[in-house]
């Protein structure tokens, strides 16, 4: 009987070893998938959303509401609804090109790609953050760097380090994801010296348009004390059909 017990233990050990080895190899793969899934949480195949952006800095706060159409992360149209002074201002991203529509002058201008790294409308989000396709999985190597409890909450942390040939401005990005609902908690951006430069915090997880999403995104740059920008999702519908011609430079004036 004694040897049987040993065989059982051996079998169990082999089984664990056998399953855990491929699991290790899959780790990077699944980390990439998780990050990819988080990054496209708010995009999907197509979506139409109404969002509020509250920009705060030393001098005060400024609210914008806007509507965002997106298709496959490739084409994005963002149009300001209020306040009246900025209403109808639009940003269109098609492929790699970004355009602004300026209602005051009734002109559409193409934005040089270097300028899409600049913050938009005085917010702490860049044009890239708002409309550019998430290229996290293309530009970064992703590893699961932490797996466990943080303040009593079970989380995973993923560290994104830029690939050698990637043209990116960050030295490292860390994303924390809750294990219970697989929702992102925060995303921290570090510069090449390893210094935290900005932090995006996700909260207010709600089911909207049939999906669980974080409906509140808070961006805080570390170099500007008192400055922060909050994006709140008021409404979002996924996988809707978007009218042809929505993503067209000629249709920007309205």
């Amino acid at each position, binding site marked *: 009987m004694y040897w049987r017990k040993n065989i059982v233990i051996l079998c169990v050990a082999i089984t664990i070893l056998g399953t855990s080895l491929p699991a290790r190899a899959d780790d990077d793969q699944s980390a990439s998938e998780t990050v990819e899934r988080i990054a496209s949480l708010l995009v999907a195949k197509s979506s139409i959303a109404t969002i509020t952006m509250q920009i705060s800095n030393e*001098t005060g706060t400024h609210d914008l509401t806007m509507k965002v159409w997106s298709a496959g992360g490739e084409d994005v149209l963002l149009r300001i609804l209020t306040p009246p002074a900025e209403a109808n201002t639009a940003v269109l991203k098609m492929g790699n090109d970004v355009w602004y529509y*300026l209602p*005051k*002058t009734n002109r559409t*201008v193409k934005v040089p790609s270097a300028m899409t790294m600049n913050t938009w409308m005085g917010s702490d989000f860049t044009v890239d953050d708002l409309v550019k396709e998430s290229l996290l999985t293309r530009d970064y190597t992703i590893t699961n760097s932490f797996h466990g409890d943080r303040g009593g909450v079970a989380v995973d942390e993923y560290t994104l380090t830029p690939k050698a040939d990637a043209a990116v401005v960050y030295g490292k990005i860390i994303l924390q994801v809750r294990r219970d609902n697989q929702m992102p908690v925060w995303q921290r951006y570090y510069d090449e010296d390893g210094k935290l430069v900005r932090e995006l915090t996700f909260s207010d997880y709600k089911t909207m348009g049939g999906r669980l999403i974080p409906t509140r995104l808070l961006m805080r740059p570390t170099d500007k004390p008192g400055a922060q920008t909050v994006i709140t999702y008021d409404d979002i519908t996924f996988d809707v059909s978007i009218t042809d011609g929505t993503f067209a430079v000629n249709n920007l004036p309205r």
Partner: protein
Amino acid sequence: MSIRLLKLAWRNLWRNYRRTFITMAAIAFGYVMLMFVACLMAGLRWQMIENGTRLLLSQVQVHDPGYYPNRPIQKTIGGENGTNVPALLSAITADPRVEAAAPRVYGYGMASAGDRSYGVELLGVDPARERRVTALHSQMVAGTYLSEAMLKKVVVGDKLASTIGVRTGSEIVLLAQAADGSMGNDLYTVGGIFHSGLDDMDRSLVLMPLSSLQDLLNLPHGRIHEVGVKLYDIDGATAVATDLAARLGKTLSVRVMPWPELAPDLADYVQFNRGVTFVLFFIFFLVAVIGIMNTMLMAVFERTRELGMLMALGMRPAQVIGLIVAEAAGLACASLILGGAIGAPLLWYLQAHGLDLGGKTGGVVTIAGVVVGRLWYGRQDFPVYAQAAIGLSITALLSALYPAWRAAHFRPTEAMRKV
């Protein structure tokens, strides 16, 4: 030294006028040459500073202490409430060394025409005042400079114009992050195109009327980022900046910077140029000294016999030396006056019309980021002229003194036997 000796010296100078004129020519030529070099080198230095500051920089700038060098849009002079701009300008121009002062506003954004866009620096100026401080208005290659009456007309660099494809009369959209965080944007017309020769400026500068840019950036009209100050004398920039800082600082929190602080590269280059000038001037001075020594030594040596004769007739050695020194001093004075007379029109011409360096292109040349024209202008440098005159006089006197001293110590009979 007696009157009789001076009379004798005077007569001696005229006795062999050919010898006198040759010596005078050597000194006068040396003097003209030194003044010429000093004038050109001072001119080069002046032109470097002038060209480095005249287009945009100006010679002294007044800012809010937090403005330079990062230029945050909020840091306007006098803080959030701005300041009384005309009062500030008249306080600055109250300094007698200040020729003119002009207010400026800066913005950063994008210029766009058709489907082409480019990141630009926007500079808002008061056209009438700016004309008196900087000279960009003289660099127009098409159209006209800004005017207060045409608020929607802007002036752009030629490279920017070709990058985004605009000509005079073209429509141009300007976008800039405004002071309140919003995206200022408006439609303008290209009124003129400039070519400064400085790559950065030609590629990315958009010049517009002050109030137009303040409107675009959502800044009240009392808020400006900078006052550009032009001085009568470039060399006094640091002193004027210190005085202005002390005087303006009583009522307003400002930082006043002279051009050497604003353009340290230029200041270094000017310093380097001073070193080169000194070496070059020293070489020319040696050439002049050798010429004068040669002529003067020969002129006195050949008179050893004559001086021996004078001593045989009862003249004491000291009197002989006195005679020669008097002759040399008279000669040097006359030569320097002659040199001055020949040099004056030449130096005047250099300063007024410049030395044409040739080159058929008529274009401008940049050296170390400084625009140097095809014409090399001179600049009067009187302290150096005076130093050269003193140096040459001493040379002439010493070169006469040595042979005279030698002759005076021969016995008369011995001296008379010399050829």
